[in-house]
């Protein structure tokens, strides 16, 4: 009989995070499935190495540990891509993870790349004077897409596939940058809610300080996911789980004790971000159209890089 492992605790004996009962997973099985998935994706694509962007946050940290377990740390390149406003603490956490895993790493400061477009200190960049006033969201998206460009370039140098690190919660509510942090060759943790990421990270030995800190996209100073979105991950995860995985109606969730306004807000986030989770539609014109009536597995005989 599999059982839920006890949650890790901090120095005062308090649990590092809250794990809603219905979201608890068997981490041994998850670990086995995911490491096999990573090996399978690489084998079928004809690759032996992986590249990922390591922010110092829990999602990319967990993926780094999973990839290292699946193929060995020496075949994983962690790319640290701070911007000038990025949290120095995150950078230190990322360096701790690299040292703990013993994997190769690269530091690529994206400040000159981003500022070359948005400008700096009143001097316009390629985006013109208007870009000097770019909103935090615009800047955040540009940073995410710059990191994507760096990762895909580094992937050529290292001969590795880019591994996605986005979790199910942020994907479902659309808290991602299209063609930015969501861009990848495959994603081992995209079907795990944030609470489950925490549970698996604890089981994998991700450093406690990385598990315990408030999640942040770190796109501007002191930003936190929960502060920006005005929600708590355990509640958000539970709403998504009951609405989507278990197909419960709004009224049923209200009966379970969830706030109706919050449920409806989450529903709207899910609906308005549907486009981010799908391949863009191609206008149907010819007899066979990719994704419509030309349907092949991504990997098949002859598709692997030789």
């Amino acid at each position, binding site marked *: *009989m599999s059982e839920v492992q006890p949650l890790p605790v901090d120095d005062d004996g308090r649990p590092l995070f809250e794990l809603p009962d219905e979201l608890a997973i068997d981490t041994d099985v998850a670990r086995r499935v995911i490491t096999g*998935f990573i090996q*399978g994706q690489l084998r079928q694509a004809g690759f032996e190495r992986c590249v990922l962007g390591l922010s110092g946050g829990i999602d990319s940290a967990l993926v780094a540990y999973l990839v290292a377990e699946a193929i060995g740390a020496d075949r994983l390149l962690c790319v640290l891509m701070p911007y000038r406003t990025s949290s120095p603490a995150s950078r230190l956490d990322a360096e701790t993870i690299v040292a703990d895993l013993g994997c190769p790493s690269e530091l690529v400061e994206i400040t000159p790349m981003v500022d070359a477009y948005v400008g700096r200190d009143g001097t316009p960049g390629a985006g013109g004077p208007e870009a000097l006033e770019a909103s935090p969201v615009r800047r955040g998206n540009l940073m995410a897409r710059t990191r994507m460009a760096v990762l895909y370039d580094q992937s050529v140098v290292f001969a590795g596939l880019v591994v996605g690190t986005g979790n199910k919660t942020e994907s479902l509510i659309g808290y991602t940058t299209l063609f930015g942090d969501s861009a990848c060759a495959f994603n081992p943790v995209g079907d795990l809610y944030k609470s489950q990421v925490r549970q698996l990270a604890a089981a994998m030995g991700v450093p406690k300080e990385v598990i315990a800190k408030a999640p942040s996209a770190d796109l501007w100073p002191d930003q936190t996911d929960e502060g920006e979105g005005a929600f708590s991950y355990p509640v958000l995860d539970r709403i998504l789980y009951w609405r989507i995985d278990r197909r419960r109606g709004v009224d049923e969730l209200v009966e379970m004790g969830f706030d109706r306004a919050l449920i409806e807000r989450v529903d709207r986030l899910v609906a308005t971000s549907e486009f981010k989770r799908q391949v863009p539609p191609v206008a149907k014109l010819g007899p066979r159209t990719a994704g419509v009536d030309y349907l092949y*597995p991504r990997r098949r005989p002859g598709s692997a890089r030789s």
Partner: protein
Amino acid sequence: MLRIALAQFAPILGALDDNLVRHHELIEEARAGGAGLVVFPELGLTGYQLQDLAADVAMHLGDPRLASLAAATRGLSAAVSFVEESGDHRLFIAAALMEDGEIRHVHRKVYLPTYGLFDERRFFAPGDVIRATPSRLGVGVGIGVCEDFWHLQTPQLLALDGAQLLLNVSSSPGRDLAARNEVGLGTATSWRALMRTYAQLTTSFVVFVNRVGVEESMTFWGGSEVIGPSGEPIFSAPLFDEGLYQVDVHLEDVRRERIALPLLREERLELQARELQRIVAERAGLATDSTADPGAEPGLAVAPVPGRAERGAEPEAEPASEPGAEESPEPISLRSRRR
């Protein structure tokens, strides 16, 4: 005593020639180990998630590659699965029993799941026959492919038709990771409960062979099993581990169990056939159900309860349109459904 070899392996998607070589190797390994029966998983010769590749790997039953595999079964039996193309160019998910150099029997998958993560009916035609076959093993053999055993009548029909050894060959993708069940995987728990129940209710051996490996998003979980006619598992293969697992069974256990627990003797085939014919006629509107609620749909005895269908709807773009509880129609009062 019969030694059964469970080929819990990972076919390569679309690579028919490579998988064929692997089948030959595994058959020889099983033979060397003294096995009398080797069972391969669903679409072991082709891989599962074929989509439009299905036509490229399809074989007629006269295909020399199948003949070469059959030729390798001299002195033993093997259940192998592939895409069969019929003379009129329908594609089937097929499982063949090969024995002593010949194809003895071919089962075409009857139930093609086309829901959730499955899309089989888009690419394949369903079989129309559920039938047991005689075998060199000395007992009747019944073959089902994966979803065939998610329908009660498949194992029942096979047992009633004379099978004492039921084979289910599967490509079951693991899902529904859970912390509180037998093996931490919802799919595995469901399958194991079903297979043990079938073995008990049909008082037959059930051999379940599920593949391992990864295709696209899916990870196949293995966990192949051999279950005795009392419903007790004799062997459970590990989840996710590739291997040729060999298990010894005593086919005489079927007789002992059926004498002690004569469930098959008690089956009322004429009653079942009569009631099925009645339901078919009622569904077609050719007869009325004399015991049904007023307002029940043809063939259904119970009328729908207003308001129930709205529950559990998918997320909508405008959730504000979800009716509140106070707007729902009053549920009708409970009353006797039967007179």
